[in-house]
């Protein structure tokens, strides 16, 4: 068997292991180590590699940002800022038809600016906004659909853990990727609000308007969320002004949200311990996948499969846009069953060389940023599509009276909005790149 064939065979084996519920990171380690053994005929390579690979991965300066952002998100959930954000959004949007749901989206976007995880955003905003939506008589599917979709803004609007991983895999500048994610993130929020506006008109009685609030009250509510704005400006502004590295920014953000949580009375020793344990769990999960992907990808590189397949695709003379279309459809399909981080770690090392070899009429860096954002959006769609959309389940456990099938139905229009947005961003790369051009 040639090395290429070994590389090709590793995929069905890996997928089999993953689908019989072996932890994804562990499955990648096993196939990576096993494949390396098949190629080399000895375990020496893996054994030598392991002496420094694990410590090297865990101490990688760019990756140290991950636990810091996760802890920042945990503190943010305890800071009570979600309530303030929701209030502020509601005072501005509540008087529109479907306005309370739109406010939930606005608050999710605001929360996403200080939290880099979709699940944490969905869970926190769900706790805050779900009771309000029900109180104002919003229908079950609209309420749960809104919050599950709104949660994905957590990862789309920087900071974002997945973008950090993508940046490392493709050797891109994290700050530039965050800048590229910004406009698509805002578009996502606007798109979701449009969906709500249409939804409440098509389905009568699903959501109503509140009395408009006086402007004094609106500005008061807006001023009340100053900690969120300040933390976001310091973290993101600090990175762009070159005052600190993304890792330092994450540390500052964690300290800031921690301080706000402390002052809001949300932090005691037990809460801090809980935050640490949740962070510990997610961090270890992510780094197990990163480690497994590292071993699997170094095995793939040995077999030269990525280079060969990139060469093959270019030789076929496919239209670049056709290839992009196929890749995105593949992501959407796999997103239904796999978590987004594993998907990115597993596929980007293979797809990225293929895509860079094709000519999309832009520079290498511009392409990498644009492709990263599009991939981020399509893998996030997986969080709100059945059967294993994590956000759906997070929200559903908070609203046990709404059957999961209704939640699925409520999310469908938002998934449509995601797909339309991906198509627009794919057709007009300048939307994504505009802010990068402006800053750099």
């Amino acid at each position, binding site marked *: 068997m040639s090395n290429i064939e070994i590389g090709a065979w590793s995929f069905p084996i890996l997928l089999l292991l993953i689908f019989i519920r072996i932890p*994804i990171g562990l499955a990648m380690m096993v196939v990576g180590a096993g494949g390396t053994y098949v190629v080399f005929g000895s375990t020496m390579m893996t054994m030598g590699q392991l002496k420094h690979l694990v410590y090297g991965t865990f101490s990688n300066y760019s990756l140290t940002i991950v636990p810091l952002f996760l802890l920042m998100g945990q503190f943010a959930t305890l800071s009570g800022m979600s309530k303030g954000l929701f209030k502020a959004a509601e005072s501005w949007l509540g008087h529109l038809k479907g306005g309370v749901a739109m406010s939930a989206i606005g608050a999710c976007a605001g929360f996403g600016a200080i939290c880099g995880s979709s699940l944490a955003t969905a869970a926190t905003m769900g706790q805050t906004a779900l009771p309000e939506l029900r109180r104002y008589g919003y229908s079950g599917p609209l309420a749960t659909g809104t919050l599950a979709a709104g949660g994905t803004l957590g990862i789309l609007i920087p900071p974002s853990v997945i973008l950090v991983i993508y940046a490392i895999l493709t050797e891109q500048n994290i700050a530039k990727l965050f800048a590229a994610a910004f406009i698509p993130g805002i578009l996502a929020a606007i798109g979701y609000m449009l969906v709500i506006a249409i939804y409440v008109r098509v389905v009568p009685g699903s959501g109503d308007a509140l009395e408009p609030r006086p402007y004094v009250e609106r500005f008061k509510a807006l001023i009340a969320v100053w900690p969120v704005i300040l933390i976001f400006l310091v973290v993101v502004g600090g990175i762009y002004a070159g005052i600190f590295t993304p890792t330092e920014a994450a540390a500052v953000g964690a300290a800031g949200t921690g301080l706000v949580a402390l002052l809001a009375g949300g932090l005691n020793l037990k809460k801090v311990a809980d935050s640490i344990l949740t962070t510990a769990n997610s961090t270890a999960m992510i780094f197990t996948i990163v480690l497994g992907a590292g071993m699997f990808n170094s095995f793939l590189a040995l077999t030269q499969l990525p280079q060969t397949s990139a060469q093959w695709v270019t030789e076929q003379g496919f239209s670049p846009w056709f290839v992009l279309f196929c890749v995105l459809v593949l992501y959407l399909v796999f997103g239904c069953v796999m*978590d987004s981080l594993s998907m990115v770690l597993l596929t980007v090392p293979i797809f990225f060389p293929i895509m860079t070899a094709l000519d999309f009429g832009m520079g290498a860096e511009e392409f990498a940023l644009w492709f990263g954002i599009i991939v981020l959006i399509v893998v996030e769609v997986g969080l709100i599509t059945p059967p294993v959309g994590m956000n759906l389940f997070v929200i559903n456990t908070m609203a046990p009276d709404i059957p999961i099938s209704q939640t699925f139905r409520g999310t469908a229009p938002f998934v449509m909005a995601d797909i339309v947005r991906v198509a627009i961003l794919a057709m007009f790369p300048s939307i994504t790149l505009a802010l990068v051009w402006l800053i750099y």
Partner: protein
Amino acid sequence: MADGDQQGQDSGTDMYQTLNTGIGWLARVIALLGGAVLITLIVMTCLSITGRALIPLGLGPVPGDFELVEAGVAFSIFSFMPWCQYNRGHARVDLFQATFGLFVNRVIDLIADLIMFGASYLIAWRLYLGTMDKYSYHETTFILQFEIWMAYAASLLGAFTFVIVSGFCVLRSARAFLANPTELHT
């Protein structure tokens, strides 16, 4: 069932429960220790940035702050591994969980825990050898000039705990597998 058997089983269950509590406590304490280091690093980084901003006033950044962050975060992540394993926190695809039935799922849990135990053992063993490598070369970091083996050795705490905890998880899933022989055919 004879009385003696029943008693033997009960004391076995008690011992297992004690062990379960103990291992859970160990995983939690080590994770909290890693978290304490992480929070210390956050404070240190904030001080370092402040110091750097105030260079005109005669202050300065914490020397070697990047090196400390790297070594400290590595320690934290190694310390987080046992908790994630104990807590069954690893990402997996549960699409077919319902289709498989209880028996198949328990077999898979046992196999997954066995592989994880093997992986944790390999990681700890190779990290130990890596530590020895760094120790014999006396390799030091660039700015603080502390010897890198020390950072490796600190990480061994988490790595060794990971082996103990994943060893326990094999026992845990083996017990779950053996506990309900009547449900073997479901």
